[in-house]
C-alpha cells in the first residue's frame, strides 16, 4: 500500500513521548498499523526516548528498592500476549479495541444527507469519531477552531487537488476551509480527530453541529 499523505512527525513524536490526549493516541496507533514507514519513524522517536533515558541524571532509589523488586519477581508469571481476536479489512486492531468489535459492531448515528458517524471518545484534548460518507457525496463545507486529522480507512476522498485513500491522513488547521468529496464506487469511512469543535459555515450545519457534537 502506498501512502501519499503520511501521518506527520509531530503526532508520532507526541505519541512516542506519551504527551498526546487519548483521542489522538487512537488515531496515531491506527495510522501506524496501516503504514510501515510511519511505524519505522515512530520507532525512531521511541529510540530518541531511549537515548535520553541513557543520558538522564540518575535519581537515588528507596533503600529497600532492589530487595522489594527481587521479592516481587519471585512469584511473578511471564506475560502471555493475547493475539487480537478476529480480523477486519477496514478496522485495524486498535480501532477494533475501541469499537469493541469489527465494522459491524460500530454504532452509527445518522448525521444527515446519508452521512453517518460514531463517537468513539472525547477528552479535554479532542474528540475522536468514525465518519462514513456515501460514495460520491461531499462532506458539509466546514472550517475548524483547531486542528482536524482525518485518516482514511475505506474508500477515498478528494479535497481540492489532493486525493486521500486508505492509510492517508489529511491535516487541516484552523485556517483551512475545505470540502472533502468521497470517491464514487464505495462509501468512504474515516477516523476523524478534532482538537476543538468544528465550525460549519452554513447555518443549518451549525445547528446540526450542536446536536451531533461534530
Amino acid at each position, binding site marked *: 500500500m502506498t501512502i501519499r499523505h503520511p501521518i506527520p512527525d509531530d503526532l508520532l*513524536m507526541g505519541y*512516542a*513521548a*506519551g*504527551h498526546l490526549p*487519548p483521542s489522538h*493516541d*487512537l488515531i496515531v*496507533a*491506527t495510522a*501506524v*498499523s496501516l503504514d510501515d514507514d510511519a*511505524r519505522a519513524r*515512530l*520507532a*525512531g522517536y*521511541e*529510540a*530518541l*526516548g*531511549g*537515548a*535520553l*533515558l*541513557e*543520558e*538522564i*541524571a*540518575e*535519581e*537515588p*532509589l*528507596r533503600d529497600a*528498592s*532492589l530487595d*522489594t*523488586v*527481587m521479592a*516481587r*519477581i519471585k512469584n*511473578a*508469571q*511471564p*506475560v502471555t*500476549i493475547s493475539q*487480537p481476536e478476529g480480523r477486519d479489512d477496514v478496522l*485495524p*486492531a*486498535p480501532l477494533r*479495541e*475501541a469499537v469493541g468489535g469489527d465494522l459491524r459492531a460500530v454504532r452509527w448515528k445518522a448525521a444527515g444527507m446519508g452521512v453517518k458517524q460514531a463517537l468513539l471518545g472525547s477528552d479535554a484534548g479532542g474528540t475522536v469519531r468514525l465518519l462514513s460518507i456515501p460514495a460520491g457525496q461531499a462532506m458539509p463545507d466546514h472550517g475548524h477552531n483547531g486542528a482536524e486529522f482525518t485518516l482514511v480507512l475505506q474508500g477515498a476522498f478528494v479535497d481540492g487537488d489532493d486525493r486521500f485513500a486508505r492509510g492517508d491522513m489529511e491535516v487541516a488547521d484552523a485556517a483551512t476551509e475545505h470540502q472533502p468529496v468521497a470517491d464514487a464506487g464505495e462509501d468512504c469511512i474515516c477516523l476523524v480527530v478534532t482538537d476543538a469543535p468544528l465550525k460549519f459555515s452554513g447555518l443549518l450545519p451549525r445547528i446540526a453541529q450542536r446536536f451531533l457534537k461534530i
Partner: protein
Amino acid sequence: MNHLGSHALAKTEIPVTLVATDDSKRWARLLVAVGRERDTAAFEALFRQYAPRVKAYLMRTGLNASLAEDCMQDVMVTLWRKAHLYDPTRAGVSTWLFTIARNRKIDLIRRAGRPEPEDLPWGPEPEPDQADVLALAQETDRLAEAIADLPEKQKDLVERAYFGEATHSEIAAATGLPLGTIKSRIRLAIERLRRSLQADASGASVGVSRTEANDQGD
C-alpha cells in the same frame, strides 16, 4: 551467569566504530538472558543500571519521588515478566524500557488503557540475527552520542520537550522566546540529530559540529 560481553566479535579484528556498541550489546544480552533463563543476576545488573534512570524519567514527567519509585518498581517487575518478548533486533534495551515506563505512567493517570499499534505478524522465531542485533546496537549508541554532543541549550530543550516536564508554552515563558522559535528550535535539534546519525551511517566522522550548532543558539 555465562560469559557476558566476551564472545562477541571474537574472531575478527574489531573495527574502531564497533567498540562503542559493547554497552548496548551487553544490556541486550542480559535482557535476553532474563527472558530465556530467568537469570536473576542478569536482572539485578539491569536493575542497577536502569532503575535509577527510569525513576528519574518518571519524576521529570511530573510524578513525585514516592509515586515515581512505586511506578519504577512496577516497570522493573514488568521487565521481568515481559523479558521473553524482547527482540534485540527491534529495539535497544533503553528504548524498550522507555516505552514500558511511558505506558505504565499513562496507565497510572488514565482509567482506560492506551491504544497501541497492531502488532506485526510474528513469523517462526529463529535465533536473532547477530548482524541485526549489532546494527541496532550501533544505531542506539550513535543516537546517545549524538545527544551527548548537542550543545547544552539544545539538549536541555529536547529533553524538556520530550519528557514533557514543560509544555512548549511554558518553555517559551521561561526562556522569553516566542513560541514559534521554541518549536522550530526543537525541530532543528531533532533534525540535527537525524543528520548526524545519517552522517555517521555513511561513514563520516562523529556528528554535530559545535560551531555550527552554536550559530543557532540565539
